[in-house]
């Protein structure tokens, strides 16, 4: 952790300050910084507002009503937690992109020769993807608070003469405020550090701090400026993370009474309740499901004509795009067949899972056995507030010099991924370790077990599930990671997300289709992992991307 987190970040700091004059005196630099920071706040603010506007009623729906399709909707709402940005970007592209279903259908119906909806590469597309991602966070945080909310408080207010509106304003809302606020902060944090979504949904016109860091590094090789941008970014995300943690510590929680969970749930009865329920269910389902469904179908449908003459009838189902993955075409961007990217990804993911699991296990043991190591615990959560791009840049600057990135790439990418997944791993493994009573180990010892036997026969079986869960997490996080990887991958060792990003930026329906096919592969692995975790019956910590 010291070497691979603080050293790269330290390098970033030193990078930004050796010649502060050279980087800061140029007014163009300030313009770049200001512009990027301004847009970052703007899009994050707008995204957060929109997310809350949709998320709060949705949370109310989940927290208060039983309705048909609730379970399906609940499962659908976990999707954004596990889907990498590239997959979501590909999904929205398949739905509303220039070559997406909606445009193909409209062109077919209206006979138009041009795509009618063009929100690709627009702020709207960015906002849409962010709303897709983060509505689930609001739903999760606020609806669980609502579901545990003691309905008797509202009843009491009514018997004391408060009208339903007054009851909501004076009792329900104030008591839900802490959870709403922490949801808002969390959403803002994710929107603020969003990278893949901006890059892939916004196109070249929009640059946030994250994207600017990427551009300055990869295109202009202006590392000092990238470093400054990173530090600004880091400062703000740390602040938000700190606020979040403080809220978790000290706020007045929702009064949780020991009572039946179902008590606060009921069927919609009144007219407005039924209308509200139906509208919300349709809205949420179309938001959450349609990009995924379009993605899957699009990956199997080969459009015969070029765009412009496109008619829906001419499309047919085919495995062509998947077959293409195995062929190394001359004009392909890579020196290896696309399937190579799949293999790279799997290899990196495996290595990353191994590294982060052993690292996480050691840290967890250290934390559990240590006396008062709360600050270390806090320290370990820092990578959570550090954006992947900042981490990628740190790695890039710290380890690329001299040795040459190429030699290290096999280890650097898994290492970066391991750092990103470490906070999640700790969150899973630490409670499991802590749940083992000391007496249990003592009892085993008194029965004649040597220390290693104690570990093998007592501890390991108890934490086994947690370890499996952690490993699957690390694996899926690595598989979908884009931000840090985009700095560290070399042209001959692309990962799937990197390949998807490049394919989406290339013309031609074959490239497009291959991006779709690859995205479906990641989607498939993610869904299988989730099903597996579900079997293990471990709850997801919120906010896994």
């Amino acid at each position, binding site marked *: 952790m010291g070497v691979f987190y603080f050293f790269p970040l330290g390098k970033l700091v030193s990078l930004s300050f050796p010649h502060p004059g050279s980087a800061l005196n140029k007014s163009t630099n300030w313009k770049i910084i200001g512009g990027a920071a301004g847009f970052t706040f703007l899009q994050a603010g707008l995204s957060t507002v929109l997310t809350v506007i949709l998320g709060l009623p949705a949370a109310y729906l989940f927290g208060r009503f039983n309705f048909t399709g609730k379970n399906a909707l609940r499962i659908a709402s976990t999707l954004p937690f596990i889907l990498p940005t590239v997959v979501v970007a590909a999904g929205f592209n398949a739905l509303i992109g220039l070559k997406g279903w909606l445009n193909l259908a409209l062109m077919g119906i209206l006979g138009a020769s041009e795509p009618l909806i063009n929100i690709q590469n627009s702020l709207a597309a960015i906002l849409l993807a962010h709303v897709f991602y983060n509505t689930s966070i609001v739903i999760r945080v606020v609806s669980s608070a609502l579901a545990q909310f*003691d309905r*008797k*408080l509202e*009843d*009491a*207010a*009514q*018997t*004391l*003469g*408060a*009208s*339903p509106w*007054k*009851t909501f304003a*004076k*009792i329900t809302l*104030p*008591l839900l405020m802490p959870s709403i606020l922490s949801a808002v902060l969390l959403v803002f944090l994710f929107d603020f550090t969003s990278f893949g979504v901006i890059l892939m949904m916004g196109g070249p016109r929009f640059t946030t701090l994250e994207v600017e860091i990427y551009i300055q590094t990869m295109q202009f090789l202006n590392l000092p400026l990238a470093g400054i941008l990173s530090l600004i970014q880091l400062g703000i995300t740390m602040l938000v993370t700190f606020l979040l943690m403080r809220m978790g510590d000290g706020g*007045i929680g929702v*009064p949780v*009474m020991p009572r039946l969970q179902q008590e606060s749930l009921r069927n919609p009865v009144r007219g407005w309740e039924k209308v509200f329920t139906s509208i919300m269910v349709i809205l949420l389902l179309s938001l959450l499901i349609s990009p995924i469904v379009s993605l899957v179908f699009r990956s199997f449908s080969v459009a015969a004509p070029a765009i412009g003459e496109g008619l829906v009838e001419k499309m047919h189902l085919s495995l062509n795009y998947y077959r293409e993955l195995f062929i190394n075409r001359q004009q392909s961007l890579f020196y290896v067949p696309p399937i190579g990217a799949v293999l790279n990804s799997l290899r990196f993911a495996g290595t990353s899972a191994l590294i982060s699991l052993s690292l996480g296990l050691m840290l967890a043991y250290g934390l559990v056995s240590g006396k008062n190591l709360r600050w270390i615990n806090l320290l370990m959560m820092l990578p959570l507030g550090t954006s992947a791009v900042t981490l990628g840049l740190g790695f890039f600057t710290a380890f690329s010099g001299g040795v040459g990135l190429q030699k290290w790439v096999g280890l650097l990418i898994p290492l970066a991924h391991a750092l990103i997944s470490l906070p999640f791993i700790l969150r899973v493994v630490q409670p499991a370790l802590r749940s083992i009573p000391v007496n249990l180990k003592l009892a085993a010892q008194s029965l004649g077990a040597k220390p290693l036997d104690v570990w093998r026969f007592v501890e390991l079986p108890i934490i086994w599930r947690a370890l499996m869960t952690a490993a699957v997490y690390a694996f899926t996080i690595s598989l979908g990671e884009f931000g840090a990887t985009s700095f560290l991958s070399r042209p001959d060792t692309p990962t799937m997300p990197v390949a998807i990003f490049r394919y989406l930026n290339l013309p031609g329906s074959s490239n497009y289709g291959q991006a779709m096919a690859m995205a479906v592969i990641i989607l498939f692995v993610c869904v299988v992992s989730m099903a597996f975790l579900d079997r293990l019956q471990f709850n997801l910590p919120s906010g896994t991307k």
Partner: protein
Amino acid sequence: MALLEIRDITKSYQNHPLLSGISFSVEKDETVCLLGPSGGGKSTILRIIAGLETAEDGQVLWQGRIINALPSYLRKFGLMFQDYALFPHMNVRENVAFGLRMQKMPDNKIKESVTEALDLVNMGNFADRRVTDLSGGEQQRVALARALAPQPQLLMLDEPLGALDRTLREKLGAELRGLLRKMKIPAIYVTHDQQEAFSIADRILVLHQGRIVQTGTPFEVYSLPASPWLATFFGMDNQIHGIVKKKTPLTVTTDFGEFACACPQGEFHKGEQVILVFKQTGAEVSKNVRKQNLLEGQVAESIFSADRFKTKVLLENDIGFEFLLDNEIKTGQNIHLFISPDSILCFGNSA
């Protein structure tokens, strides 16, 4: 005209009938107690009266007017919840002031009323405390003050002492009784504890399986329970079957002899199957041999309880009866007990 009248209230829960045809009324200045086992729908009756739930059938009338459609916040009925439901984001003063603020009372008058209500429950010094810092008993008082402050037309209390330990329950029960008498406010009090009900109620309604099975003053209800179930509910477990031998004076033949019974619950004819209930208090050790009202058995245990000895007597067939006797009797001793006809209840088999 009754102040509050409940007519034929019916309500089911998850397709099982919870309340079937509940009717009763509350008069001015009266404390009515709904007594019954937990989970019997007592709280639901209060919630229906308060307007927090709707009945499937039946009416709620206030001063002769049907108020079924009147929303809860316009009814001006105070309800004190079982676990108090104090607003955790407000302090004691704000909690008590809530109802007054909803009435748009001016601030200075609110302050006055809150102080008055808090003084009434001896919580005057706690006005600025957080409700989450209060003990159970203190929370109970604040909840009572909050319900009383807006001067409700009717006060409903749902197991108000249920969450407290026994000593506190007795102390606060006495205070509550005094307060209700003093305030002269009509009240409905819900509890599963018969002692609590006896000590506080002017009138008791016993609820069983969604119906009111007995109504009366505490004395009436306890001394003459209307069914074997009620007798058991009040702790009268000494029950045996018998057949009526003679109508007047009522004489019943049982496996343990003949018993004259002075407390028949209904009319019985000769040869009818009946159930006899022996109250714990009606037995005394008998030296002379009698023909009637004599139980013979062996003492299984004799435990001191208050100023008497709770004595378990094993009859034939290993049936065990409990009686309160004046003196301790050694375990294993055979005794004859005379059962006073006044302490024997007789029920029809179907009751």
